[in-house]
């Protein structure tokens, strides 16, 4: 077997382990990855949506608030995977499992590949489920098949990037609580400081500049444009570029943290 075949085989083994873990923790995952976003969706649509919808103006393009909201909620599902992914990595690092793997002739990085792959798969399942609920409560996308494929592509790319970032955070965290706390800005703060719930233009000047230029905004804007059939402009390129940068930097950070951890 070549080194590459072995690396692929080891990564597949670790991915299998991670999927098995997810199945064992299914109830927990359903609550955190599906029910929480669904509650957000319902709260924002039914409770706040009336007022926000009126204030949207041109941004709504004549559609109800739910059509504006759902792309943001889908992005929150992706961002919400950061905590569990970081915690899973920290659990492996602080338990004896990583030490056992390190004393075996297992491909370096296979463990992280398993975690990242598992995170992306969990996110895809959760976004699909939340999108299903969104359709039930009145979300009416105007996307073509190609648009839908692009939506899936952006979700996967963003999920992949955030999974590497979460893995790196999980590697450097000293405890599970630390891992969870460190991912809160990603899963909670940054979504609010972006175009997730309201257009960036409606924010105060200082926040507006930050919101317009941070990675979550082009991701949400791309999903929104694709799902509403609006012109995409160059926002999708920006989103993909952000994903690539986050994934690359996080990957390098994770590798460095892994090396440091062995000394």
């Amino acid at each position, binding site marked *: *077997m070549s080194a590459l075949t*072995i690396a692929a*085989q*080891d990564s597949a*083994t670790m991915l*299998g*382990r991670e999927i*098995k*873990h997810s199945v*064992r*923790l299914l109830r927990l995952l359903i609550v955190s990855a599906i029910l929480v976003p669904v509650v957000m969706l319902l709260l924002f649509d039914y409770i706040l949506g009336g007022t926000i919808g009126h204030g949207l103006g041109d941004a709504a393009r004549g559609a109800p608030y739910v059509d504006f909201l759902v792309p943001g909620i889908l992005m929150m599902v992706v961002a919400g995977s950061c905590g569990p992914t970081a915690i899973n990595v920290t659990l492996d690092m602080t*338990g*004896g*499992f990583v*030490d*056992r*793997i*390190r*004393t*075996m*002739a*297992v491909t370096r990085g296979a463990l992280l590949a398993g975690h990242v792959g598992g995170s992306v798969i969990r996110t895809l399942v959760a976004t699909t489920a939340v999108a299903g609920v969104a359709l039930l409560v009145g979300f009416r996308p105007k996307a073509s098949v190609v648009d839908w494929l692009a939506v899936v592509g952006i979700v996967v790319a963003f999920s992949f990037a955030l999974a590497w970032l979460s893995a790196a955070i999980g590697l450097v965290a000293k405890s599970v609580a630390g891992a969870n706390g460190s991912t809160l800005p990603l899963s909670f703060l940054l979504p609010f400081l972006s175009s997730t719930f309201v257009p960036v233009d409606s924010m105060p000047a200082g926040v507006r500049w930050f919101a317009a230029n941070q990675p979550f905004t082009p991701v949400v804007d791309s999903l929104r444009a694709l799902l509403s059939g609006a012109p995409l402009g160059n926002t999708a390129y920006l989103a993909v570029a952000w994903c690539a940068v986050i994934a690359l930097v996080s990957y390098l950070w994770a590798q460095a943290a892994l090396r440091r951890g*062995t*000394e």
Partner: protein
Amino acid sequence: MNASTKHETRTSVSASGLRKAYGEKVVLDGVDLSIGEGEVFALLGPNGAGKTTTVKVLSTLIPADAGTASVMGHDLRGEAGAVRAVIGVTGQFLAVDNLLTGQENLVLMGRLLHLAATELRARTAQLLQVFDLVDVAGRTPTTYSGGEKRRLDIAMTLMGRPKLIFLDEPTTGLDPRSRQTMWQVIRDLAAGGVTILLTTQYLEEADQLADRIAVLDHGRIVAEGTPEELKRRIPGAHIRLRFADAASLDEAARALHGSTRDDAELVLRVPNEGGIRSLRDVLARLGDDVAVEDLSIHTPDLDDVFFAMTGTASKEKSQ
């Protein structure tokens, strides 16, 4: 195993001048080791002596700051991959996956070792059998007893048929019965010809299992030899007598030559080589008039080994 038929012509582990420090704290201060193939070698020492660090260095988990070492003929620095292919490590803390069943844990190891499907199945079934885990194979380790978890941990280590096994404090935290079971597991492994490096805080454990023992203290090996050789260097068992007052202590010390007295605690230690007979003798020499408050019989333990080898009590017990 039969020590007389063993020819230690080949070396499993050879280390020289291993040093490791974390900042100011020196953990290994020049450790030399030579372990023959098929030997059971015990590293004996208290917490903080450097036992786990030695295991971590030799099992490629952490690099040493200085010194050289080879494992099964492979250099630790240059050929870590080759070393990993022939060793098995059971760390001090359990390395089982709590979300997978016992069987799935073993299968996971087999996959990571790239075993063929038939070998994977056969080896899993065999290890579950050998370690008496068949009944719990379908459950997750969260439902296991301490002994079952340890056995699964070691079974996972053995999945790849390692030639050298590191066992870091394999019986710490186990109840006496599970400890006996673990000792038998280790004896069986040794009988199978595997080289074993185990660490322990207990002289008795090293005595029971090891062909050779190295005593580790503050990152240095302060004594090395067969259990018999080491025990010869330890002052023998003694009887400890505690008295109600200084006058009784004085009187007893006069009657029992060769004893050592501790005036602060009103305690007298009398060498006790002859078991019950010498105990009778001691009591007879004391007579009826000396008021003995308390009497205990003391057999050599790690503390005595340390006292004999380093002239200081081991850290934990001196507190």
